[in-house]
């Protein structure tokens, strides 16, 4: 099981990703500088980490989406390889057109950092298969631009094809505007591409995996990946 973590100038969750995949899960996890043109051979998963790549210049993720390593990440995704983008990583995947939509400024205008509850909308994905459909788990968010937005017609298509992987919810799994921290359309916290191998999410599962540091609500995502790649 080999994980590549692309590192951009301004990435600041790359070490969280390396810790979760490398230290906690025990996977072969390799940081890859954005100027590289190739992922390490036999990469199973690309984990695009959070942060403020290129200082969020122009739009969040817009400049990182043009980095040399992105061409090989697209090739990896086109070949069915797994790609997980968290927070700024999600923004980068949208700007790179690997996922639809865009992440706007939070409705409150504020940077929000707190724990949220997520409901699993798709339990048949490589990223969710160790969790049950409708299960609720707790993970932190930490972002200023997490307000997921999509053209209304495309939003209908996204929902119809089961493109929503995670939705913000109450601790009991209730859905509604009150539980959406950032104004995201339909309470969307994470989406998946049509092929099911590229997932982007604003919350940080990699920050909730190590009992030394706190709750471990994010482990479900990593256990799912382990199962999907046959290392469980």
């Amino acid at each position, binding site marked *: 099981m080999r994980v590549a973590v692309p590192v951009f100038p301004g990435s600041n969750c790359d070490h969280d990703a390396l810790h979760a995949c490398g230290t906690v899960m025990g996977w072969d996890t390799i940081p890859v500088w954005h100027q590289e043109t190739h992922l390490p051979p036999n990469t199973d998963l690309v984990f695009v980490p959070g942060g403020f790549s290129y200082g969020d210049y*122009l739009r969040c993720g817009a400049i990182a989406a*043009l980095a040399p390593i992105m061409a090989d990440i697209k090739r990896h995704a086109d070949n069915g390889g797994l790609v997980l983008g968290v927070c700024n990583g999600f923004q980068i995947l*949208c700007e790179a057109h690997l996922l*639809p939509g*865009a992440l706007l400024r939070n409705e409150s*205008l504020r940077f929000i950092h707190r724990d949220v509850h997520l409901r699993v909308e798709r339990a048949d994905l490589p990223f969710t298969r160790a969790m049950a459909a409708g299960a609720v788990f707790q993970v932190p968010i930490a972002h200023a631009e997490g*307000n997921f*937005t*999509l*053209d209304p017609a495309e939003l209908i298509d996204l929902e119809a094809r089961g493109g929503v992987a995670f939705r913000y919810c109450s601790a009991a799994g209730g859905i509604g505007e009150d539980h959406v921290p950032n104004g995201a359309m339909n309470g969307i916290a994470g989406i998946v591409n049509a092929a099911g191998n590229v997932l982007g999410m604003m919350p940080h599962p990699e920050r909730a995996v190590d009992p030394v540091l706190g709750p471990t609500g994010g482990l479900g995502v990593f256990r799912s990946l382990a199962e999907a790649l046959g290392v469980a």
Partner: protein
Amino acid sequence: MKVRVSVQLKPGILDPQGKAVEQGLHGFGFEVEHVRIGRLIEMDVPGTDPADVKARALAMCEKLLVNPVMEKASIEVL
């Protein structure tokens, strides 16, 4: 030639910055509504044919300067 690209959020896209600035202006007693905040990009593009320069600026918008999910642009060749 000098090119000015004005990038605005599409109508209907929530603009919390615009809303905050509008509230600030109301605080000063100004009567104002529908405040929207955008981005102005100025650049020098080599060439002498305005139509050709504009076409290249449009290509730049499509590739990088504008995210069509949330933004629209107008291009001015000066």
